[in-house]
């Protein structure tokens, strides 16, 4: 259905030129047939003119039986832009690795053109397919059609958020474990936790196949699972010499940039002190034809990263220095430990306290004790510098 109402958008129009693809064109494309998108265009132009947003805090809306997956949104200019008086987002759980067939995509488009704004984010920064903007009464029918197509909603609120991962073994030579298989497994194992918020705050998983961390898991997931190896870097010395011959300055580009200072190059052989290799990937990245991660592969499990609110941003920190990630995933011990952590966090965490903040508040040592993990030096960048030790052991007079 064509849309009659037409807004002047002199400011937004300026964002149609230039070589980078234009989101304004996208909104206009949708607006041609969609009243919601058309009103969005008008509203956005007004925001550009006034330099202020026009959205209100969302109330709680969603689909029956779920507590997450929908972000409620209403404009504060509903009289002027009635078609976006509701403009809720549906978060649809993407397939692991963001692989699609054209057919599957068209299925989603069909649904969303019927029930929503015809606008999406491919993808949201957590990883979901974001269906951007619809009315409350459309949520349930959209959901029914999505599930029929084989898609389910993702997380929002204080639940497990939609796990995501790098393409891993599907398209990368460095994947040290099967990121997509694990992501699929974890997403299914925690369907209940994902759809029904019961935690003190959100809980994100991200799976990266190697230390390059192409999903930024160390920076933005409560549980970061990052592939690595613990034996020796695989070397094809002929290929190393090939790189040197073809212009790679191995001393300056590789040896001098190795953080473990474990490389040496005499013009013929690359010597690697694997025992102080930090598994940073740099030498492998520079010479992918010559070097590869070792054969004894697995992952490091880290927890706790998050954005700055309230205590300052955190990166995830190591709790398992190395685990094998092999089928059957049901036997993965670290997942049980994570579940213990959730129990503890649910019991003792404060409202809106992420697990990384919680762990810091109770102290890593105490936290480990509670969840039944032994402290190991891999968990710290370095031992304490201050002498403020809560000694728990002491002798008593006999």
């Amino acid at each position: 259905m064509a849309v009659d109402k037409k807004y002047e958008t002199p400011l937004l129009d300026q964002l149609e030129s230039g070589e980078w693809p234009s989101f304004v064109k996208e909104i206009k494309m949708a607006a041609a047939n969609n009243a919601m998108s058309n009103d969005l265009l008008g509203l956005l132009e007004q925001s550009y003119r006034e330099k202020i947003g026009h959205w209100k805090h969302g109330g709680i809306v969603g689909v029956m039986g779920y507590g997450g997956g929908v972000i409620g949104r209403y404009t504060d200019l509903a009289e002027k832009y009635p078609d976006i008086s509701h403009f809720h987002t549906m978060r649809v759980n993407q397939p692991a690795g963001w692989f699609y067939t054209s057919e599957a995509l068209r299925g989603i488009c069909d649904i969303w053109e019927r029930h929503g704004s015809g606008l999406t984010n491919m993808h949201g920064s957590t990883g979901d397919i974001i269906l951007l903007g619809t009315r409350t009464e459309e949520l349930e029918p959209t959901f029914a059609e999505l599930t029929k197509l084989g898609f389910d909603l993702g997380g929002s609120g204080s639940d497990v958020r939609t796990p995501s991962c790098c393409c891993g073994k599907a398209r990368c030579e460095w994947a040290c474990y099967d990121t997509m298989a694990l992501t699929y497994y974890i997403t299914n194992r925690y369907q209940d936790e994902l759809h029904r918020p019961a935690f003190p705050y959100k809980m994100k998983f991200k799976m990266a196949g190697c230390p390059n961390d192409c999903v930024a898991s160390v920076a933005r997931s409560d549980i970061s699972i990052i592939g690595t190896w613990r034996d020796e870097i695989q070397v094809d010395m002929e290929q190393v010499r090939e790189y040197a011959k073809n212009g790679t300055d191995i001393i300056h580009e590789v040896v001098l940039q190795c953080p473990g200072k474990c490389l040496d190059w005499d013009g013929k052989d690359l010597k690697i002190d694997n025992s102080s290799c930090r598994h940073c990937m740099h030498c492998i990245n520079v010479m992918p034809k010559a070097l590869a991660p070792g054969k004894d592969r697995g992952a490091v499990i880290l927890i706790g990263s998050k954005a700055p609110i309230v205590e300052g941003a955190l990166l995830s920190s190591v709790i398992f220095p190395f685990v094998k990630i092999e089928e059957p995933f049901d036997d993965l011990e670290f997942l049980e430990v994570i579940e213990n952590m959730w129990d503890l966090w649910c019991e003792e965490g404060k409202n809106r306290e992420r697990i990384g903040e919680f762990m810091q508040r109770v102290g890593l040592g105490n936290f480990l004790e509670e969840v039944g993990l032994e402290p190991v030096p891999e968990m710290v960048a370095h031992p304490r510098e201050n002498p403020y030790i809560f000694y728990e052991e002491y002798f008593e007079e006999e």
Partner: protein
Amino acid sequence: MAEDTPKRLTDIGPPHYEKFLPPIIKENYGKWKYHEIPRAGVLVHTSDTGAKLYSVRAGSPRLVSTKKIRMFSELADKYSEGYLRFTSRHNVEFLLTKEENIEPLIKELEAMGHPVGGTGTAITSIVHTQGWVHCHSAATDASGIVKSVMDELIEYFKEMKLPGKIRIALACCLNMCGAVHCSDIAILGIHRRPPKINKENLPKMCEVPNVVASCPTAAIRPTTYEGKQSVEILEENCMFCANCFTVCPALPLADPLNDGVSIWVGGKVSNARHEPMFSKLAIPFIPNNPPRWPEVTSAIRNIVEVWAANARKHERIGEWIERIGWPKFFKLTGIEFRKEHIDDFKHAGLTFKRSVHLTY
């Protein structure tokens, strides 16, 4: 149950990814041996079996209409047997088995307005968030700045001519949904005025103890207003984080005159060479200037180009600055160093220069 009321499905989880993998990937899953990047936007992965997969990556605004998704789908049908994917930075990738399809696909993509590039040492898409398009919390727009910056930097997307990887991200408020805290260059929407208290609505909409607890600087104190529980704000303690607004809609901070963006540099996520690093403040404030935020785009071009001219190969912005020192960064970029740059939050003391490792 009657035949025609279908069972309501829940908790089915996402579709299994295998359904969407092209045969070449299924066959070579876990067998990839190495990759090459013959030109910006094209990756060639070679398998142990000798098979070769050609991935063509095109830029995307991320905010895409279903119409555009249909157009991508058509291209996929034409050139890659219907298989395509999106990346963790929201680019679209077509997964080709035929080398000869690369060039025609690129032509069509570019004709559609989707430049091909973003691999290797090119600048790739800007991870970003909702902004004025959808979020109540935004101190700036997201898509508009991203479009403007990418237009400005387009040559670096289309060619791989930089010393190392560089990742740009944008978040429209301190919640940092764009996870900008670890980016080579981060654009962050900021407020500069304390919340305005909507006295009428606050008692109805918000739990006073939660509101008080939400403030990291203890700027919020409980009080009463017309006999009802309310809050007051010690303006000099407020650093405009909007956490109170997140828990209480009656405390908006948006202010057209004083909202804008800050620019941060030197973060990274990968473990390559240096451990992951947080981004650090480069430019404390640039006012919102829609539709094209020219001060922001030129500030970013400047940083990119000063880095490009001075960094060693593979050195990301943070590593480069660590080598040359922050004073040199400010000197070379011409950015003014101000009181705002000096940390005064929890671990501030640890950011003071506690040695004479200085450059002159």
